[in-house]
């Protein structure tokens, strides 16, 4: 099943690489405009990041990044089609041109950024790896996990961090590797493994999916840096800039106090020159990016600023209730920071 999918992807890779010439700057934007939508690779079901609601619509912080790109390009945030991908499938899908943007809680690492033909366009969520255990085991710290059986998702940085952490602390473990996060969660519930390890945000998201969430706790240790962000194919700087600045526009909007509610008003009478530049009142900053003048207005109006997106999907207004923490803006105690529009 998975093999067929992967093989198909490989064959497509070979075929695409075979027939298309060099990837050129601008090729992706032209192709996206021609087909009329952005093809976006997302997770196959992770509350808060990307999941389908009762009506079958995709929701989540990763999904909103895709909507923002569509809003910037087309002025219409709904012009997105989603490809749900497992961790194993994601890079091949992007390499082969099956998707235009990969926005799938993917950790930015040097080998992925440089050796796999991708470039990361920024960080949507600063995360770190943690552990989820059953309370019955009576474990209070990750240091007490010597000899544990651990469920992980295949093909993630988590797999490598886990091994590093146990080796550094001179502990042993048995890994059980599944393709999807749902399978690992099911296994944790069945008691096949003692611990589930993943990015902390994912652990909270998976916990609320369990039958009895209260019986499980997330251990306090964070054992790695996991900056999660969208990635695009290497070699098309124009598209790279569009994705990058769609994200930055949301961050800048929050910093400048522009929200989906007041953006129209602000666009009429900008309160500061910064806001004027962001919303396309002053200067031709959209044109530089090969985007319409009101690109940022559309993003903010239809998707919201970063703060709104965060609170709606993973923060106080969601079931996950994750605090801003590292993901607060730089001037509010966090490390989220976007270069200025100028």
């Amino acid at each position, binding site marked *: 099943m998975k093999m067929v999918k992967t093989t198909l992807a490989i064959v497509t890779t*070979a075929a695409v690489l075979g027939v298309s010439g060099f*990837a050129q700057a601008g090729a992706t934007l032209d192709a996206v405009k021609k087909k009329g939508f952005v093809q976006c690779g997302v997770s196959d079901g992770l509350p808060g990041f990307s999941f389908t609601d009762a009506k079958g619509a995709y929701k989540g912080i990763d999904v909103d990044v895709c909507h923002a790109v569509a809003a910037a390009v087309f002025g219409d945030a709904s012009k997105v089609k989603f490809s749900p991908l497992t961790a194993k499938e994601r890079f091949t899908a992007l390499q082969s041109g099956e998707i235009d943007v990969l926005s799938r809680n993917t950790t930015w690492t040097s080998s992925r950024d440089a050796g*796999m033909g991708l470039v990361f366009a920024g960080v949507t969520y600063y995360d770190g790896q943690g552990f989820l255990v059953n309370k019955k085991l009576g474990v209070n710290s990750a240091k007490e996990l010597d000899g544990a059986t651990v469920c992980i998702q*295949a093909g993630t940085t988590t797999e490598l961090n886990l091994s590093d952490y146990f080796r550094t602390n001179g502990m042993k473990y048995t890994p059980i590797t*599944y*393709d999807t996060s749902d399978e690992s969660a*099911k296994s944790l519930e069945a008691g096949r493994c003692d611990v589930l390890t993943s990015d902390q945000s994912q652990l909270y998201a998976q916990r609320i999916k369990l039958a009895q969430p209260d019986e499980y706790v997330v251990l306090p240790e964070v054992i790695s840096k996991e900056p999660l962000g969208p990635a695009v194919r290497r070699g098309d700087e124009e598209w790279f800039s569009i994705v990058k600045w769609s994200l930055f526009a949301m961050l800048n909007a929050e910093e400048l106090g522009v929200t989906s509610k007041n953006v129209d008003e602000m666009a009429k009478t900008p309160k500061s020159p910064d806001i004027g530049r962001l919303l396309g009142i002053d200067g031709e900053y959209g044109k530089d990016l090969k985007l319409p003048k009101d690109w940022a207005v559309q993003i903010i109006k239809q998707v919201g600023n970063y703060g709104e997106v965060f609170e709606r999907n993973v923060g106080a207004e969601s079931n996950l209730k994750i605090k801003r923490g590292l993901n607060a803006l730089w001037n509010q105690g966090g490390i989220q920071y976007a270069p200025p529009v100028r």
Partner: protein
Amino acid sequence: MQNTGNASPASGSFFTDPRKRAWLFQIVAVVIVVAIGWFLFNNTQTNLQHRGITSGFGFLQNSAGFGISQHLIDYTESDTYSRVFLVGLLNTLLVSALGIVLATIIGFTLGVARLSPNWLIRRLAGVYIETIRNIPPLLQIFFWYFAVLSPLPGPRQSLELGEVFFVNNRGLYMPAPVAAPGMWPFWIALLVAVVGSVLLRRWARARQHLTGLPFPVLWCSLGLLILLPGLTVVISGVPFDWDMPVLQGFNFRGGWVVIPELISIVMALSLYTAAFIGETVRSGIQSVSHGQTEAASSLGLRPGLTLRLVIIPQALRVIIPPLTSQYLNLVKNSSLAAAIGYPEMVSLFAGTVLNQTGQAIETMMITMSVYLAISISISVLMNVYNKRIALIER
């Protein structure tokens, strides 16, 4: 002028000679195939380079850095990707080998049972075959994994058998033999017994050929195989120490463990394939005309002997070719184990390694060649066996 020396009818023009023409076409075909292959390779290479995707097989020497739940050879996280490949290959081979042996045994039993004169046995075998072979193997794997093995109790509430075997949802734990010092007499005795059995069998065959007198080879060999090594155990002590599984912390430590992923995949695949083998065996047996059975009975052979000496050898000719395809199917289906997290080739190498290195083309190429190699080896072996048992017409 008479043309006596040259036998070829048309040797004049290059294009009118069918043999030369055939050569020309073949050369052209080869050139085209090579050119296309070269173009694809070259274009892929250039594009990979342009997009900054690392290519080549150098990654095999890099350290893998992740753990594997089941490895038949020593493996630690600091080992290389090529070691991971070996681990995955051995795990695939283990599933295939166990599956083939079990499926063959169950399948032959089913096939014979399907033709049993006993109504109940015949019907039961029929119902089994019709049910099992019509359910997709992936569902059967899930059934064994999630419905049969997952509900077992956790390690601290393990079911135990004489404080030696333990069953829980982490697997089946059993004592592992560890070679004790001074066990060489045991191995020598075992070797002598094996060689002795082979020689005995040869001698008995030759004697039966000459005189017609049968010799109980099976019983004598068994006796030899048990008695000789047994004697050394009595004289020089037990050749093994037992490494017992002990509950410690979260899990049992020590001993051998058969993980539930392995049990699920082997059970599912062997029961599934056995249903097909059963039908193959039944059709093989039915292809031998009933006259053979009657002839054998009239010679005074008992039903068991008739089946073993007359029917099965003739049926095998019909059974072996489709049996080979069943074996090949089983090997290929073993890749379904990826769905339950058993670390075989596809999940480990074409999955995790592909993802950690991003080198899709190389890892998929290696994986596909491995399956091809395993399948071809099985075909070749089965063809050799088929030749040996083929009816020799005189």
